[in-house]
């Protein structure tokens, strides 16, 4: 069984967690319907490194896991605020 290093609870057995799929950017409410259909139904489903929502069930704590779906290796875990801040930074860097 994998060990997941929860930012709140430390390393715990994977059985204590659930995965809620890849972190996605929700479209705006008035976005075109195909954009919404994409968001609701379609998946990147990458064989490789993905960022996903995971929850430690006993403490109901949500965080982001960076994981390789080809090897099952867990690369990093982040608090949500930490993750989104780093994403904003990356996006900022990209736009410069």
């Amino acid at each position, binding site marked *: *069984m*994998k060990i997941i290093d929860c930012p709140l609870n430390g390393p715990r057995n994977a059985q204590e967690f659930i995965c809620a799929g890849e972190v996605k950017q929700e*479209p705006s*409410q008035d*976005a075109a319907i195909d954009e*919404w259909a994409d968001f609701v139904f379609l998946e990147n489903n990458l064989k490789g490194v993905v960022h996903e929502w995971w*929850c430690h069930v006993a403490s*109901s704590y949500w965080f982001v896991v960076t994981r390789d779906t080809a090897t099952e290796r867990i690369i990093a875990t982040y608090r949500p605020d930490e993750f*989104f801040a780093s994403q904003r930074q990356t996006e900022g860097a990209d736009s410069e």
Partner: protein
Amino acid sequence: MSKFTTSRLPEPWGSVINRDHTISFRFEGKGYQGYEGDTLASALAANGVMLLSRSFKYHRPRGAFTFAGLDANSYVQVGDEPNVLADMLPISAGLSAMGQNYLGSLYRDHAVHAGRLSRFLPVGFYYRAFFRPKGIWPLWERFFRRAAGLGKINCNADEAYFDKQYLFADVAVIGGGPAGLSAALAAARAGANVLLIEEAATLGGSLNYARFQRHRRDVDSLRDSLIGQVEQNDNIRVLVGATCNGWFPDNWLALSRPNRLYKLRAKHVIACTGSVEQAMVFRNNDLPGVLPASGTQRLMRLYGICPGSRAVVATANAEGYDVVLDLLEAGISVQAVIDVNQSAASPELVEQVSTMGVAVHQACTVGEAIPRTGLRSITGVVINKLAESGEATGESWQLDCDLLVTSVGYAPLGQLVCHAGGELIYDDALNSFIVTNVPPDSGLAGSVNHRYALDAVLADGRTAGLDAARALGLNPEADSQIMPDSGAGGINHPYPIYPHRKGKDFVDFDEDQTVADLQNAVADGFEHPELAKRYSTVGMGPSQGRLSSLNALRIVQRVSGDHLAGASVTTQRPPFKPVSFGVLAGRSFEPERLTPMHRWHADNGAVFMPAGMWKRPAYYAGNKDRAATVAEQVAEEVAVIRGNVGVIDVSTLGGIEIRGPDAAEFLNRMYTFAYKKQPVGRARYLLMTDDTGGIVDDGVACRLDDEHFYITTTTTGSDTVYRNMLRRNAEWGLEIDALNVTSTYAGMNIAGPMSRQVMEKIESDMDFSKDAFPYLAVRQGTINGIPVIAMRVGFVGELGYELHVPWTQALAMWKKLIAVGAQFGIRPVGVEAQRVLRLEKGHIIIGQDTDSLTMPRDAALDWAVTSSKPYFIGKPAIGLSETRPQSRLLVGFRLLNSDGPVPEESHLVVRDDAIVGRVTSVAWSEALDEVIGLAYVAPEQAESGANFQIKVSQGLMVAAQTVQTPFYDPENLRQAL
């Protein structure tokens, strides 16, 4: 009985048996005696019984082969337990075992003639026949199934006790042979906490029986010294008699004993799992009396058993000569050594045994073992001269013997490493598999790592132990040194396969697959080793290819002309050895959630039903002697709420508190309705949809303060709704706190026209009058000294109060209501009655009256959707659906003919032979004196008064009529009293 002669050798032969303690046991109904420390197989061998089982396909007589639990020849039935390894099962007083897979008796198996049909049963034969004419296979299958399977399952077996234990270690060393002992000591001395796991009952592994050529005289003292050091080391825990059956991600190991599963988390794993000696392939190589060198040595050294009186040893390596010396040491006559090498690997060994009077025939092989009638033992062997190509020539002669020992090499037991990502790849220099892709945080040592010479094995273990210590951040004083093993290259023969034109040259004992079967599989076009395996079933039996995959791969690649070097075998899968369902299951663990009033309900005759993990009273059967039907009980409970007052335990409803400046905004986003202008002290309906616009949950929001809501969810929805809320807000970042208080508050709904009278009789700081506490009001206060959130909601459609009280005080409150309500005829009411009551009001139950595709307007809940809000989950999907014609609508209905058949839930609404909907709820309503229900119908049938057809049992059609809901009290006057 077998004429195979065995007897006990004198001490010190027999290191694991205690000759002072005799144990009686039975096999095949006959009584025997053995010694403490014996396995069933060894104790039987001591009594001259080698035959233990009949093979799967041809019912060939078989005896234990490895005497280490690595083959399936030793499968016996012990009571209700099939497929028990007789060479791993310690004998115990009263043990009674039987052979398996025979018709008649183990010794006279009427099914043995299956073997004579073998020429008509070529590889994959069942694919070629038995399917014409169409539909014939089931008849043949019945015949085949009679022959299928090995052991018997008793469908009335008693249940035994199984449990589980968690273990933790810095370093797990799997295997207590020389490499494992050495590795454990090295790691432990560097400061690591070590768990040493050994499958056998004692440590030592091959040190207990192998002689390692020039170490012949030192092996025993070396073993005692290593074991002594391990036992004295406080950093080492030893677990014997436990099989490591699986190696899972992040070093999660499954160790099993007969009644316990250990789950071990190790920081580092060292696999010292050893290797398994491979069979030499020739005609009748499967008979009792043919043994591998290591099996022979185990019998002699561990159990003190003389395996025969006249032996022939066929060998390709020095280990074979070790066995010759062992046999001679035990006083057994060795007729000849058959050395399959063109020139002996070690002239010194040839000379050594020659001087002891044993003839050595070089460049020869065994072409056939000659069976005694009944195939239960052998009387001799046919020796063939080998050509330079290594193939047997026609030049042959016979030798008499009752024991044939073969020594042609090993295959690494790398299966566990493969569970964790390793691979077994054929290596041309070693003529064997090597283990590659060793997973992170682990190492290999010993013969699994192709080290065979004792010095090399010990050094390899030490290196692995030191490497583990370093990986843990410890600083061992010593350095690791890798010692090459010069002997390893010569231990495995490249092709110890000598096919016989008359067959019975077995490659796979489990599946009775011969050389020709594999050759034919390739000839049939199944060239890829994996396809050949699947077609022939080689390696698919209980020993999972441990004894067959090496030779099978050699044959397949030779026939297909593909390279052997670099070829691999099928991915090895857990478990390493078959593991019982009971061990994996452990103790039954089926958690259930009970409300604080559960005991009271049980004491008062409640019949419970599951609701998710909860148990809820379905109805109360009462303790009275009268024989009322369930329907009558439920009808009484309905009537008490309609007529007097009843109380329902609603503690299982989810409860969530939302606090913070953004609380109303948060609910606005999570739910379809609008909450920003909801007044404090009021309750409002909650409807939740998902991103597809489908209904997922409902409940009630109570605004306790501007920034504080107390909300309810469905019983089964509470955990997911709560988790979903936190997930969404991890993105939104609204200023709220959400807390799941499902088990903080218990709930009870006191309902009925007299409920206010009951409430007013209990001491409280709340005013229950109509004006002070109107319909949909929410109040906080104390009742009978207990803090309460009280709300007036109308699920059952009568005047009523839902009281949410602290879990620990709920029972007291419940009892108070029952006591005070007695004069008004109060009764507890269960879920069944509640379902009827709500149906009379036309209220839906999420999950029963909705399905995963039900959108709010389909369930006539569009009134609970505030489209003007800028955002709620599901809004875009709901918006899109509204641009399309509606396909169905949930409506209330009554039956046109009250005497006809009554539909059941899920009966279909059919129009012009097309399914347009279904009944979701249906019940007899006493209040309305007719059957009422909810059903999905086509939009054209949704008008009040429209008629539609329901298809009930036997295809009968029942006419129904759409009715406006609520059925009961359509003006909703009673709940607002």
